[in-house]
Structure formats: C-alpha cells, structure tokens
C-alpha cells in the first residue's frame, strides 16, 4: 500500500466521517443536557431529503442547507415537546421520529418527484463544491507533506470544514461558557439548576434545538455534498453509528472527533475492499461494517474504560411542588 492509496483512503474517511461527526456533536449537546436522542438518524434523513429537494428547486446548495436545517429543527421540536413539555419517554419519541422521517421522506418525495422516493440528481451550484485551500497547488510538489495537504486536507466541501470547526467550538461552548456549564449541569442535576433560578426547560430546549441544527448540517452533507441528491434511506444507520461514536467518545467533543474519524475510516476501508486479509485471516466486509457497533458494545460493557452517561439522562425533570 503506497502513500497515494493511504491518502485516498484517509481522504474518503474524512468525507464519510463528517456526517458522523456533525450528528455525534448534535447528540453530544442533547445528551449532555439530559435528553437522550436516538432520533439522530431520522433528523439527518429528513434534512437530507429537504435539502436535496430545495437545492434542486432553487439550484442553490445554501438554500437547500437552510431547508434541511429547518426540517431537522421541526423534528427536534417534536422531540422537545414530547420529552420535555409532556415528559414522555425520550427513547420512544426518538424511535417515532426515526420512523416519521423514514416514511415521510419517501411519501413526500414520491408525491413531489415521482421517482420512487429519490430526488432528481443535483449538479452545479445545487451541490456543495470542493474548496481548494490556499497554496494547495503550489505546495503539491513537496514530498509527503505536499500530497497530504493537497489531497487530504484540501479539496473538501465547506461542510467538512464546518464539521471540523464544530469540534473546538463545541468544546468551547460546553466547557468555557456559562451556557455550557449550565447545560452540562442540567444533564447531571437539573434540580440544582432549577434551584439556582435557571430554567431547566429552556436549557433543555436550547440543547435539543442545537442538536437539530447540527443534524441538519449532517443531513445536508449527505445529500448535497457527499451524494448528488436524496436516495431513500440514504442515512443508512449513520445516526446510530454517530450514537455509537458518542458513547465511544464518552460524551466528550475531542474524543468524538477521534471516534468519528475511526468509524469513517472503517467505512472507507469497507467501501474499498470487499475483504481484507489480516495476518492470513480473511476478514469479511460485513465484519468491518459491524465493527463500530461491536466496539461500542465492548465500551458500554465497561471492560475497556467505562462509559458513564450524564446522570440525569433520559429522565424528565419534574419540578417539586
């Protein structure tokens, strides 16, 4: 395996990791505030569909992105109303949102375009184009570092860079701002936050909405940057892999970056090789696909570093009267 191949695989891993990363950070905000969200998948799917539809209609990827975020925000609102306002079961609400997105995208897509749940293929300004970083061409000649800069770091869509930028931003918001401190507190001990005179409901809704925005970005990346249009069930379990990455990262932003890059790499390897020969043992591609889930179960089992979720996660907050 030469350097060019390795860079190609890593390059594709970066692209594939971006939706995971955005969805993972989305889940991070929500779960840190004590709202479990297994509806990441559904929000991504809805965002992918609407961003592709609007991008096709307006021929603008940016308008598509806005529409995608709006779709994701609507589902996030449903999740918030169900799990915060009506104190319903957050997991059941997430399941419902996944099915809602899975069904509605096809029903509406079929009614609008009549292509069996697809949107028409996007081209030109309806997709996010690859951006060349400055001096990428000039530095290409430098051995090792040149190709890494030119092929691996440069030449991605703007959403990839937004995803990477979201990691330090999330870290800064959660660990260096008052809002972040309160948000984490509301996930650990909402009663204490309430006693301090800060609205638990408001904070949790804010977290759920941020989650919706980030899922919208992730979905738009799937349909208007990674792919060229929406395809039925195109999120293909990525919301759950993001959830797995979130647990793998133990609800921390920088670790989330690492986990998502790892899972992106696994996907890239799985796409490139049908089966991999490691030390004489034939590893089937299905094993590579299942590996993120297996790793997550192992982490959850606590045999390799225990993953402890936010303490108040999943429990509706009932104010004492």
């Amino acid at each position: 395996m030469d350097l060019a191949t390795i860079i190609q695989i890593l390059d594709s891993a970066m692209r594939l990791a971006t939706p995971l990363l955005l969805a993972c950070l989305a889940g991070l905000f929500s779960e840190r505030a004590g709202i479990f969200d297994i509806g990441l998948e559904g929000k991504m799917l809805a965002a992918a569909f609407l961003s592709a539809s609007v991008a096709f209609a307006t021929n603008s990827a940016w308008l598509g992105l806005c529409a995608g975020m709006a779709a994701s925000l609507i589902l996030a609102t449903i999740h918030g109303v169900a799990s915060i306002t009506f104190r319903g079961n957050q997991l059941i609400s997430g399941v419902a949102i996944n099915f809602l997105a899975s069904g509605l995208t096809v029903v509406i897509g079929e009614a609008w375009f009549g292509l069996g749940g697809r949107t028409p293929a996007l081209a030109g300004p309806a997709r996010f184009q690859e951006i060349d970083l400055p001096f990428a061409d000039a530095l290409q000649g430098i051995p090792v570092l040149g190709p890494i800069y030119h092929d691996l770091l440069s030449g991605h869509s703007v959403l990839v860079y937004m995803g990477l930028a979201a990691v330090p931003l999330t870290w800064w918001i959660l660990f260096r701002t008052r809002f972040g401190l309160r948000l984490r507190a509301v996930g650990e001990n909402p009663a204490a936050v309430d006693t301090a005179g800060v609205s638990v409901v408001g904070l949790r809704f804010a977290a759920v909405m941020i989650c919706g925005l980030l899922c919208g970005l992730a979905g738009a990346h799937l349909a208007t940057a990674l792919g060229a249009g929406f395809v039925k069930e195109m999120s293909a379990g990525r919301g759950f892999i993001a959830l797995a990455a979130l647990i793998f990262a133990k609800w921390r932003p920088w670790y989330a970056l690492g986990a998502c890059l790892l899972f992106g790499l696994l996907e890239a390897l799985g796409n490139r090789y049908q089966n991999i020969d490691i030390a004489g043992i034939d590893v089937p591609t299905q094993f590579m696909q299942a590996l993120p889930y297996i790793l997550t179960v192992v982490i959850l089992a606590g045999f390799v570093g225990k993953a402890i979720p936010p303490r108040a996660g999943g429990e509706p907050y009932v104010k004492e009267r």
Partner: protein
Amino acid sequence: MTDTLPKWVDIALIPLVNVTLALIVSGIVVALIGENPFEALRILVNGAIGSAYGWGYTLYYMTNFVFTGLGVAVAFHARMFNIGGEGQAALGGLGVALCLLFIPWPHWSIALIAAIFGAALFGAAWAAIPAYLQAKRGSHIVITTIMFNFIASALMVYLLSRVLLVPGAGGSPETARFVEAVHLPNAATVLPFMGFPRSTPLNISFAVAILACFFVWWLIWRTRIGYEIRAFGHAAPAAIYAGIAPVRITMIAMLISGGLCGMMAINSVMGEAERLVIDPVQGAGFVGIAVALMGRSHPVGVALAALLFGMLYQGGAELEFEIPGISREMVIVIQALVILFTGALDNMVRGPLEKAFVARRKRPSKPEPTTPLEAGGHPERKQVEP
C-alpha cells in the same frame, strides 16, 4: 397518578384517543400530498378486510406482529425497552433455517415444534448478551439492543452470502428451500370452508401466535416469575428489598422477550418464504414496539393492535396499487405517529383527562350520613369508585 383514572379510561379510552389522533394527522399528510384521505381510508380498509384474500394477508402480518409485540411487551413489564426485536427475529430465522435444513423431519408438526424451539433459542440467545450487560454491567439495554440489530444484520448478510448460500440461487443470498415435508399447512388447507385463496401466506403459525398470547397472559399474571417481573418493573428497589434478584429477572424477562421475537420467524421463514432470505423480518421487530405500546403490554391489547397493524400493512400495499400517488411508506408514517402519540405524547392526552376526572370527582356530592351504614363500609367511596 394512574389511580385518579378509572381503569376503562386507562386501558381503552386513552389508547383510542391516541390512535385517533395519529390517524387524523396521517389523514392530514395524505391531504397535503393532494389525495383524498377518506378515499384512501376506504381503500385501505377494503384492501385489508374486504376479501378473504385481504384477510389472509392481514392475519399473516398480524401473526408476525403478535410475536414481536408480545416480546416487546414482556420486556416492558420489567421496565425494559427492547428495541432489538428486529435482530432477535432475524436470528430466530437463522434458528428455524438451521433446524429445518440439516435435520430430516418426517412431518411438519414435529418440525414445527422443533422450529419453535430453534427460533426461540436463537432469539433468546441474541437478547442474552444485551440482557447480561444490562444486568451485570449496567450498559443501557436500548443502546446495546440497537447495536445488536446492526450486528445481526451484518452477521446474517455474511452467513447468507458466504456460508449458507446455495449455488444457483440466482445471485440473491438465500438458503435452499426447505423440504416439502416441513411446509406448514396454509389457511386454504386448514380452513377450506373459509375461502382463503392458496396464494395467501396465512398459515398454522397464526394458531401458535394466539397460543403465545395465552402463554404470556398466564406467565405475567398467573406465575411467580410473572409476578416478579411485574414487581421489578413497577418498583425495582421494592422488588429487590422483597428478595427478587434483579440480575435474574432482567435476564429472564429479556430471554423470554427475545425468544418471542425470534418465534416470529416460524411464520415468515417456515410458513411463508420456506427458506431463509435476506431480511426475513421486514421491520416487524419495530412494529412490535408500536403494537406493545398501543396494546398497553397486555396480550389482548397486543393482539388487537397487531390486527390493526396487519390491516395497515396489507391495506397499505393495496393503497399503493390503487392510488399510485400514495406510496407504501405511508404505513410507516402511520406507524410512527401511533408510536409518537401512544408512547411519547401519552401525557398530552392523559393530563387533560386526569384533570377532567379529578374535577368531576371533587364535585360536592349529595349529603350523606357521616356514620357508616354498615360496619367497615364507606358509602361515599363505594359510590364513586365502582
């Protein structure tokens, strides 16, 4: 809080209101995509129960959903949310296939019993690891069962495309057909006077599903294990204080849950496909969640909810055929809304109803003698709480 509502409101009125809301919202969706919701409903109901052919499919789907619904319901009784029905049922399919492919059974009846055991064993085994991790290591069962669904799907693709694949199956990953002797009798054979066409997949597994309903009722409300499961689900600390071992109950409840989900495969794999294909479950594991929620985890409710979803699945197929503007996925939308309204937004309906009933109860009653009329009696309470 549930004490404030009469029982019939809790088990009948609220689910009914929830489902009605879900159907109204579904109707709005149909109207928004430019079709007539009442016409759609008519076609759906007619397609599902308007003919023996429709009934044959409706009851076939119902059979699947009864198994997975009961599975999810048993876990609900222990206050656990088993999202892994999909994977457990897929593994159940593997159990059925292994059982029928490699052992020469003389007659379908013996094979059916063996297949039930095979399906339940494999389904339970797939639930065992998440259950153990929940019981012993505190890993959240929802997350682990979701992960196990994906692992199961990868495992099944691997087994079907590399291990169990028959040469010359036309490229689609599937096992060889089961031998003629183990084909389950279908409705046309068992009930010739009912007029089910031979093409409908309804088969003897339907009877097994009904028996499973009785079994779950007996298990949950008539046995010691069932009592322990319910006690643990209602108040885990109290149950532990009373000497109920949490690890044991978690394991038992999840094993039964996984076993029931796995048993779905006798209907879809042994009864219908008569071979193991890729994804024999077709989402039934997830429908089980909606069914258990709607049926309030009671076998009777589960059976009725499964019938409703059976109608939706069969009627939905007819709907797509009759009105091409409405795609089959409309059924998934309805399913999602049922889960949303009966599961997550339950308090939206329950809250106002509770207020209404409390208000009615607080209304001053007619003057009554303050001393009890008879020893131990309490006229006021007797009157209000029948």
